[in-house]
C-alpha cells in the first residue's frame, strides 16, 4: 500500500481517510505478532517518553496504552486527575505545557470535555493521542473494534453492524460509526429514541428502536455499556426496562445468525446490556477486543510517535 502516515496526533476517526485507517490496521497486524515472540518488546520508540494523562478515570484503556508503550520500549509516566495539579486549579494547557517541558514525546489524553485532545494537539509539539474526550470520540476503541471485525470476518465492506445502547452520549459509538462507514459497512443504531435521535441518520446510518427486528440480519452486534454514572433520568426510564427492551438476553441471542459476532467495549454490566451466558458464549469476541486493543495502540503509538518531528 502506498499510503504514508503524516499525522503526529490521533484525535478521531472522522478526519482519517479509509486508506489511513487500513494502514493502521495493517500496521497492527505486525504488532499483534510481536506478542507471540519469545521477546515481546521491540526498540521502535526507544528513548521516547509517553505520558498517560487521564483526567477521567479508566483502567483498561490506560493499562493498554501503558503496556503498548512498554512493548515499544518507550518510558511511561501515569498521571490521573486526582494526582495532578489540575486538582489545584492549574489549567489543562498549563499542565500540558509542564509535561512538554519535561520532554514528553507522546501525550495520551482522557478528558471529560469534547475537543480537549484537539485543544492540546494544536498547542503542543508532542504527539497527542485521544483516549476518549467527552462524548466526542474514542478513536483507538473504534480502531480495535474495526480490527476485531476484520480479523474474524476477513472484511468489513458490506457487513451489517448493529450498535445498541446509549448512542447520544457515547464516544465509542461515534468512533465506530465514522470508521465503519468509511470502510463500507452498513450501520444500524438501536436504542431508546431519547438516546438514539434521528439526527444520526445524517451521518449515513439507519436507526431502529426495535432490537428484535434487526438482530436476525446482523453480522456484528456491538453492545455499548449503559453508563449509569452519566445517565440522567429524563433520558432513561429504568435499568430493568432497558434490559427488557434492548438487552441481549439469552432468548434474544437465539435470533442471531450463528456467525454473528457479539462485541462489547467493556466493562460489562452483566444482566443489563448483555446476559452473562451470552457474554461468555462462543459468538462473543469481547476478550479478543482487549488483545487487539494492545496491537492497535502499539500501531498508533508507532505511527504518531515515530514520524519525524520538525
Amino acid at each position, binding site marked *: *500500500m502506498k499510503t*504514508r*502516515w503524516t499525522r503526529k496526533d490521533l484525535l478521531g476517526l472522522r478526519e482519517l481517510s479509509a486508506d489511513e485507517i487500513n*494502514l493502521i490496521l*495493517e*500496521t497492527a*497486524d*505486525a*504488532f499483534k*505478532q*510481536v506478542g507471540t*515472540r*519469545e*521477546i*515481546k*518488546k*521491540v*526498540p*521502535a*520508540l526507544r528513548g*521516547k517518553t509517553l505520558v498517560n494523562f487521564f483526567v477521567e478515570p479508566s483502567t483498561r484503556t490506560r493499562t493498554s496504552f501503558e503496556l503498548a508503550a512498554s512493548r*515499544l520500549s518507550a518510558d511511561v509516566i501515569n498521571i490521573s486527575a486526582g494526582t495532578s495539579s489540575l486538582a489545584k486549579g492549574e489549567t489543562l494547557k498549563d499542565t500540558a505545557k509542564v509535561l512538554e517541558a519535561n520532554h514528553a514525546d507522546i501525550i495520551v489524553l482522557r478528558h471529560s470535555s469534547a475537543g480537549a485532545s484537539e485543544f492540546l494537539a494544536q498547542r503542543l509539539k508532542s504527539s497527542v493521542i485521544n483516549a476518549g474526550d467527552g462524548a466526542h470520540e474514542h478513536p483507538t476503541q473504534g480502531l480495535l473494534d474495526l480490527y476485531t471485525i476484520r480479523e474474524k470476518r476477513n472484511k468489513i465492506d458490506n457487513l451489517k453492524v448493529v450498535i445498541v445502547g446509549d448512542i447520544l452520549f457515547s464516544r465509542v459509538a461515534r468512533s465506530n460509526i465514522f470508521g465503519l462507514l468509511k470502510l463500507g459497512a452498513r450501520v444500524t443504531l438501536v436504542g431508546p429514541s431519547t438516546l438514539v435521535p434521528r439526527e444520526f441518520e445524517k451521518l449515513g446510518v439507519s436507526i431502529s428502536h426495535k432490537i428484535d427486528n434487526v438482530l436476525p440480519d446482523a453480522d456484528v452486534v456491538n453492545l455499548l455499556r449503559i453508563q449509569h454514572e452519566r445517565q440522567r433520568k429524563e433520558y432513561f426510564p429504568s435499568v430493568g426496562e432497558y434490559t427488557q427492551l434492548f438487552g441481549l438476553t439469552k432468548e434474544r441471542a437465539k435470533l442471531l445468525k450463528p456467525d454473528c459476532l457479539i462485541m462489547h467495549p467493556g466493562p460489562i454490566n452483566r444482566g443489563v446490556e448483555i446476559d452473562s451466558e451470552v457474554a461468555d458464549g462462543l459468538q462473543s469476541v469481547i476478550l479478543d477486543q482487549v488483545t487487539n486493543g494492545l496491537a492497535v495502540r502499539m*500501531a498508533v503509538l*508507532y*505511527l504518531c*510517535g*515515530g*514520524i*519525524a*518531528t520538525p
Partner: protein
Amino acid sequence: MDAAAIQRALRRVAHEIVERNPDLGSLVLAGIPSRGVEIARRLAEFIRASEKIEIETGIVDVAMHRDDVGARAELPIVRESKLPLPLEGRTLIIVDDVLYTGRTVRAAMDAISSFGRPARIQLAALIDRGHRELPIRADYVGKNLPSAASEKVRVRLEQTDGEADVVWLLKE
C-alpha cells in the same frame, strides 16, 4: 544487470550456500521485505532443483527495529515477520537485495534475536554496493557494484515490482 545475469548470480549464490552448509535441513532463508523475500524464494527454488530438498523460508521485517525511527521523513511500513520456530540449532541466512550501510542487517539480527537464538546467522545479498557504516559483511554476494554515495542502486524484480528483472546504477 539484466534478468539472465540476475538469475546466474542467484544460481551461483545458491550453490555457494549448499557448499558451505552441509546440513541443508537446518537452513532457513529469511528475506527482508519486500525484494529480499522474493530473492529468498528464488534461492530456495534453485536449491530444491539441484539438491532435491525443500528449504524453509521466512520473512524478517526490520521496520520496528530500525535505529532511525523519528529521524526519517517517511516512516517505514511495518510488516509481519514470519519465521519457522523454534530457531534454536538452525542456520538462518538473512537475504536482501542491496547491502549498503549494514544498518538494515543489524536491525534484522535484532529482530531475529527476539524470536530465538539460531545456531548461526549468515548474510546473502544480490548486490553489495559498499559504504558500510557498521562492522558487517556478506557471506554470499550476487554482484559487487562499486558505487559513489551520491549514486542510487535500483533493483526491480518481476514478482515484487511487476516489471522485468533488472539492476542499474542511477547517477545523480
